[in-house]
């Protein structure tokens, strides 16, 4: 670790916090008070002893290349407040010249280094291809039965007309969704549930319901003819139905990946946290979406602060317009990006979304860096307008997120141009990260 230039910002550190309580607790430990024997290594690790209420201080070490954390405290949160405090201290003041890790930190770091050096996957297990094929066939048959049933349900819906849907309510759709779960088609189940909520979503619902019903029908039809589809589209259909490809089988791209955004959403039943991390390859220009999941009460384990660049291999899963990726080997410690990414016009943003629909017609949005644009606040809705010309995109607040991010965006702009990363789709543009002119420092809006 070279000091000064490569330190993270406090925002980047706090973005790692699993919850508000941890942010707060970590913030309190972010001063020199409780810390002793702090230090960092040239290879990208920091460590220190944190005085707690007990007699023995906690031993905290962070591998910045992950980042990965180790702490002797009993907390089950990752990163724990000590790791956050240590990172905040490092972010604020640095930890001096690179040095040698003490034994307790060195052992763990060496273990990580050894694991990273080992070839991924280990020795290949003997695969019973015949058994796997039979399992896949059985599942395909079940999904096929589910798809048939769903087609029947959609036909009934349109034969009788949408007009009665406001009264019929949600229960019927919930039941259909449950049958899709039984048919091992979780992707269909999720879309069916979504469909059931549309009649209660306010004006314009019949058009939206027809759109979603039609796209569901398109997916059914695609599944029934999946064997005749070209491979990337076939993989997309399987993904959308709910049979994801295995993580190891796609194309690997080594690049310097800029972290554009990271945000969490919690499933309707509160049982699963999904973390979305948007990356862009600085060499390839390729967007990538890395997902991680956390079980009830636990945040996802992977955390990548916005604005960092990590040199790594990303393995893209087949299908889904080539967005889904898994991070593989990392080649260097993550460093802050030296400049803001270049943006495109509103027109080009919609073109990119349109082009992506060719590969995945079920895509709701596409990651786009927009700019230079002006945020225009409005009573009825916000817009992001090109600085030149008269074109604008309406701002969509997806996933019930708060408006505070929008006001932050307005504050950054002050009526002047900004660069904004977000998801651009048929509902509008959802801003996630912004950059002011002349500074590489990103501001996370979520």
């Amino acid at each position, binding site marked *: 670790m070279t000091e000064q230039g490569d330190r993270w*910002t*406090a*925002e980047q550190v*706090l973005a790692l916090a699993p919850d*508000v*309580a941890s*942010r*707060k607790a970590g*913030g*309190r430990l*972010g*001063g*020199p*008070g409780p810390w002793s024997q702090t230090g960092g290594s040239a290879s990208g690790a920091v460590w220190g002893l944190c005085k707690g*209420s007990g007699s023995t201080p906690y031993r905290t070490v962070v591998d910045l290349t992950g980042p990965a954390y180790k702490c002797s405290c009993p907390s089950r949160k990752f990163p724990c407040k000590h790791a956050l405090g240590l990172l905040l201290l490092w*972010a*604020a003041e640095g930890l001096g010249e690179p040095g040698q890790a003490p034994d307790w930190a060195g052992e763990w770091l060496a273990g990580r280094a050894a694991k990273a050096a080992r070839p991924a996957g280990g020795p290949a297990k003997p695969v019973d291809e015949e058994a796997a094929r039979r399992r896949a066939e059985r599942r395909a048959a079940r999904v096929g039965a589910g798809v048939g049933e769903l087609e029947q349900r959609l*036909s009934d819906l*349109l*034969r*009788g*007309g*949408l*007009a009665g849907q406001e009264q019929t309510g949600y229960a019927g759709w919930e039941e259909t969704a449950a049958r899709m779960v039984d048919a091992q088609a979780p992707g269909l189940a999720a879309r069916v549930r979504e469909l059931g909520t549309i009649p209660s979503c306010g004006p314009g619902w*019949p058009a939206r*319901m*027809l*759109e979603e*019903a*039609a*796209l569901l*029908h398109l997916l059914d039809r695609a599944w029934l003819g999946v064997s005749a589809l070209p491979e990337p589209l076939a993989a997309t259909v399987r993904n959308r139905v709910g049979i994801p490809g295995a993580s190891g089988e796609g194309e690997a791209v080594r690049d310097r990946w800029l972290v554009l955004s990271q945000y969490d959403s919690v499933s309707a039943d509160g049982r699963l946290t999904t973390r979305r991390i948007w990356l862009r390859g600085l060499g390839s220009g390729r967007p990538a979406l890395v997902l991680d999941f956390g079980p009830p009460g636990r945040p996802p384990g992977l955390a990548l602060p916005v604005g960092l660049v990590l040199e790594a291999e990303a393995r893209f899963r087949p299908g889904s317009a080539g967005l889904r990726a898994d991070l593989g080997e990392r080649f260097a410690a993550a460093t802050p990006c030296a400049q803001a990414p270049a943006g495109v016009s509103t027109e080009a943003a*919609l073109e990119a*979304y*349109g*082009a992506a*629909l*060719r590969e995945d017609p079920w895509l709701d949005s596409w990651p786009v860096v927009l700019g230079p644009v*002006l945020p*225009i*606040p*409005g009573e009825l809705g916000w*817009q992001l*307008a*090109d600085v030149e010309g*008269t*074109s*604008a*995109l309406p701002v969509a607040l997806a996933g019930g997120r708060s408006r*505070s991010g929008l*006001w*932050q965006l*307005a*504050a*950054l702009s*002050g*009526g*002047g141009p900004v660069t904004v990363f977000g998801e651009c789709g048929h509902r*509008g543009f959802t801003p996630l990260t912004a950059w*002011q002119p002349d500074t590489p420092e990103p501001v996370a809006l979520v």
Partner: protein
Amino acid sequence: METLDGETPHGDWEELVGVALLGTERRQGSPEALLDAAAVQTVRRRAGLRPAEAGPRPEPAPRDPRPAPPEAARRRLAQLLAGRSGAAGGGGRRGTAPDLTELLPQWLAAAGRYGYRAPAALVPALLDAARARTDLRPQALALAGVRGLWLARLNPDWRFALRGGSGGGGELPEVTDAAGVERLWQEGLFAERVALLGAVRAHEAAGATRLLATTWATERAEDRLMFLDSLRVGLSEGDEPFLEAALGDRSRNVRATAAELLSALPGSALAGRMAERALACVGPEGVTPPAECDAGMLRDGVVKRPPAGRGERAWWLGQLVEAAPLSCWPERFGGLGPAEIVARPVAEGWAEELHAAWCRAAVRQRDPGWSQALLGSASAPAAAGPGTASIAERAKLLSILPEGERARWVAEFVRAHGLSEAFQLLGVCGVPWAGVLGRAVVDALDAARAAGSYPWSFSGVMGLAERCLDPAEAGRLEALTAAPEDPDSAPGAAAYWSEAFQRLVATLRIRATMLSELTPPL
């Protein structure tokens, strides 16, 4: 967003939605065919989306010429503001971790002294903080500056920022630009006009009252009151004619404020009239309160009706003495100084009334000599002293003494009487506390611990100490963070004290770091 006309005509889609609403049964057609057509249309519509027409763009915010704070300070502010929103946790014992929320005012004050502006991304959080805590408002709004005002015009939640307070840097015209001053004075928001008045006054005192006089007759009573109030800063003899005229104002509150301001000018005609009345009532021979409240007294701002439970003659007496210049008393008492006058016994139970009025006069006229006399000795038992026994009055009197003297007086008070009554007095001392005061407080806390009290009995003073103690004291305090194994202390108290001192040390360390991050601008 719109679809490309021609390529996917609205007509087709609207027609499909119409059929879907009614159902294919009534329109002889197959549902599958409808779904097929709708799917094609949906994907085409989405793929063919075009940008919308941009609405009216907001006026750009004026440029804020002030520098942004250094990076480390920016991060610290973000942390302090984030701590604010995450607050409200727990209750009960606070543990050893410092309370960051309480450091926000200091950060704002320090940044304000250096003339920094708030980092743009933090302005919304700053406005939210100012909305929730009025005590933070002036400093938070000053820091947010023109960007904050620009945002406040867009978001009704922040409208408070447009009322009152300073207008923020960069917006006011040069005070020498007569036309610009005139235009803003005629057309500006109230907050802008108050800021303008202050700026003109700082440049040339008489200019402010001249400006006020141009529109005075047409201002609303609330506004007249606020404008008058803003003359408090830099009040001088030159303001007398304007104030004297305001004694005849339609609004009673305006009249009272004008009278109060005039009485703070010992050379004013009103002060002279009040002196004449007060001298007739109080002297070496005794106290004779006024028999009536005449028209002259009323015009000079004396309030006729006493509050419930107070005699009207005593009420009038108090107002006369309060408004009379303190300089008139030594001659009346045969050349005695303030201390001797205050020490004289007063007959017929008028002492309390008279001393309270002198206290108010000393505060209003900012007279350190009389303040000292009325405060008396810090170490004497409160009831025995010649001056006032009320802690609230003492705090006010202290606030007009020079900082060093204030700290010495309160330190002596703490050493003599402990901490239980010192809270209000500590609150008026300059931050960081002078060495002598800080040591007195720490010693008193240590003594309270040795005496077996629990730390939460002193949580108010502890909180003040976290904010006000000189960070240089942290080293000395370190020794107190160890938990002594003292069998005589109350059960568990030692651990709690150690925890409280740990938190104090931790907060002082953060404060030191925080202030060192806010280096002066280059």
